[in-house]
């Protein structure tokens, strides 16, 4: 059975098709959710929920398209929704966060060639904690899922210009944070 057959089976009501999809996509999906939420348990919950949502809406899936981007969109959106819900509780809100990056905007300097890879990883991880969930999501979509800006715009229902802006803001802030951590 390949992926299309799995989807067709699922459309026909056979959950064997769903198991195939779960087996093939769960690890990457949990990683995506984890990179956005930074919470492994929450990431698992999000992916379980995302598969249930996919199961529920599989009849609307266009079989001429690839499943992974469609499904990862669900995962990213669910992660964002959760984080936005959480932000109401803890005050890590997007509007506040997005304002903070101005603080770092002028401190951009390329540091990429200056540090060892493993050190960069740790810094990235620490720096990503300081990004807003939405900024983390665009970083994950662009660099981890390797989506084009056009795909990201389509998924978010927004313009490419907005995605460019978000990406630039996230990237800028990340660089600013990374540079700061270097000091």
């Amino acid at each position, binding site marked *: *059975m*390949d992926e299309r*057959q799995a989807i067709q*089976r699922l*459309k*026909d*009501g056979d*959950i*064997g098709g769903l*198991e*195939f999809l779960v*087996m093939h996509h*769960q*690890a990457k999906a*949990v*990683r*995506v959710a984890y990179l956005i939420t930074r*919470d*492994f*348990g*929450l*990431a*698992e919950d999000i*992916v*379980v929920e995302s*598969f*249930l949502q996919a199961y529920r809406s599989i*009849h*609307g899936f266009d*079989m001429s398209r690839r499943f992974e981007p469609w499904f990862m969109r669900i995962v990213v959106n*669910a992660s964002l*929704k959760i984080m*936005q*819900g*959480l*932000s*109401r509780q803890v*005050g890590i*809100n997007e509007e*506040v966060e997005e*304002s*903070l990056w*101005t*603080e770092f905007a*002028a401190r951009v300097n*390329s*540091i990429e060639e200056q540090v060892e*890879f493993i050190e*960069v*990883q740790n810094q*990235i991880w620490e720096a990503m904690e300081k990004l807003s969930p939405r900024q983390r999501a665009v*970083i*994950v979509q*662009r*660099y981890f899922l390797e989506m084009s800006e056009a795909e990201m715009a389509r998924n978010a229902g927004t313009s490419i*210009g907005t995605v*460019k*802006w978000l990406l*630039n803001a996230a990237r800028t802030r990340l*660089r600013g944070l990374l540079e700061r951590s270097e000091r």
Partner: protein
Amino acid sequence: MNEKRMKEALESIARRNVPENINLWPRIETAVTLNVSPIEREEGERRTFMQTLRARPALMLLVVLLVLSLLTGAAYAIGRSLGYIPGFGLVEQGATIRVLKAPMSVTRQGVTVAVKSAILTADRTNIEYSITGVPPSAYPEGEAVTGGCIGELSQPYLLLPDGTKIPEGRFLTTGIPADVNTAVFVLPCIFNTLPGTVPENWELSLQFVPAQPQQLTVFPVTEIPPSPQPTPSITAQNPLALTNVLDIGNRFVLMGEFRYDVLGTVGDNNVFADGSWMWTKNVRAVDASGREIPLQINGDIEGPIPSGHAEAWMYQIDKNFLPPLTIYYEVERVTPVGDEQRAEFEFDSGTSPQEGMTWPVNREFTFSGYRIYLNSITLEHGGYNFHFKNDPDVSANLLDVEIVGHPPFCGGGGGGPSLEEQELTRSVCYGMATPIPTGKLQIVIKFQALQRETQMYQLKWEPPQPYATATPQTGVCLTLETWNRLAEDNEENPLGMGGKIVATVNEGGMLPAIYVSNLDGTILQKVDSGAWASLSPDGMKLAFSASDGIRILDLSSGQTIGIGSDGYRIIWSPDGSRMMFTATFALNVVNADGSGLRQIDTVPAQVISPVGWLPDNQTIVYGALDGGQFMLMKHNLQNGETKALFPIQNKAGYGAISPDGEWIVFADRIVGESNWGIFISRLDGSERKLVVEPQVPTAFMSVWSPDGQWLIINTRGMDNYDRPVLVNPFTCQVVPLEKISGTVEGWGR
């Protein structure tokens, strides 16, 4: 950092923290099987997605945070007088609905459990709660755990005064008696946390009160017979039928069927007598202007149950379309051509093959004139993968692989769409419990030629004119309907209002551009780039946040001074002598010349958000994040006196005080709505009035006119462009500001 290294870094971080051998299937399978498969659904028993959620021990945080958007509400029933609560579903019109008197939260050792809202009807209970602050170290990281908070143990429940326990799993099917107005929300432990890592036995006392109109939007539901016939318009040729329409306020819910049996004799699984079957490729709706109308999923209302050999569908659409509406239903009919063909060969994977191994095969097969070339076999997660390279169009047919004597968990047939893929992979997988066969294996390649034909069906629907629109909440000035009509309104600035406007526009740079103009858009001047632009009341000075901190620009001389401090949400005092701003956790005041910077002694809070000044130039109002909401506080800078006003729920704590100090405008959450509404009220929270309904997409920030009679509401259109709108919250006059681009952040004299 280049993109490749960034990806590598993210990959490495993710792999370090998320194990490869993760297995979510048991949880998903349990959830799905406790629900019902689509096939079983056709047999009459019908459960909802929420029953799935209810049956699951705990998806805890995820579910509760999503609960308002995922709830499947009361089933639709003809002949009942119904109301619709967005996010909750259908309720009996006129029924008593209760809500939470006040949100409750408890924080212990950094972990907060909060009950944010509740909706209680006679037969359903909906509690929205959240758990935050759980440290990652409290969760297992792939290690075997004995005990811990899982299953029934983790399920929260409501404890009623008479000792009755209502577990979360029964919330949606259990009503709390009308004379019971208190309950304790009990959370025994936090799901999936390791023993001893976070506090347990949480209890929050809840009080329920009858919902006030401003707390809960209940849209009257109108059942509209599909036009032109009052009954399903199935014809001998058209299997597409509209069976019912619900008017739920600003949207219609369309229900219908695609009837296979109209197209021929149909057997089990909707397979036609000639062995063909159909699948839905796409559904679209287009209005009379040719505009595609987005079809939305409504998770609150149960869809129709298909009768006989049919597929039921239900979509929700916004009302802003030009009738009639045409629904296009694109299906593909797949017909087997000729008999299934097979080829066999032997494959030896050895006695202990390892994941990641590859065996070259390099064999060619010919089926129905197609050349199919098997390159290799690999052993990957859960089974064998067979990698083919084929003639074009092979993938439009059925190509399958079996291992003789080892029925796979996920083997079998199925077709793909007509794509000219020349590299195909077929998997034979064995689930989690079945061992993967090894050694000498007999492989069968199966091929079934298929003929594919795309068919398009359509139906037209003419809604009743005029639309039966929802009764707006009393006094709402800007409804979605009004807002949609504004695009056709050419009446700009009819009152000849004046003053300077400052707006920020994203132009792709690192910082938004700041423009100052007249209200009608004339004398446009790009003054700088920055964020949180704030115009002094006399319109002569502009403060904004730049990369090097807050700057103050004299608009007449062009001179700029920096105050040497970062900050945002800058608000001028009425006399223009001072400004206040926040640096997230602290509130600061500074003189207009940049001197006298000092931090204000506020109440402790996770976030402090400035709101405005009173006309005495000494009293400020700010929002302090307290649990799930911002408490508005009034603070006198001279004597330090501080008084709590009332709470608002918007995630940034924004509000704005009218120049006369009598009114405050703010964004606030409405129970049952996913978006916020824009309200005004007196400073003590009285005379609260909904000015902009939540269906209108707005920013949190609204701006008062210098005379305090008008508001600029920052809305954003479907095209993603800002559409600032002038609204008089007292007379409800609404005027578009089509010539102003960007987000309006201030209005000076």
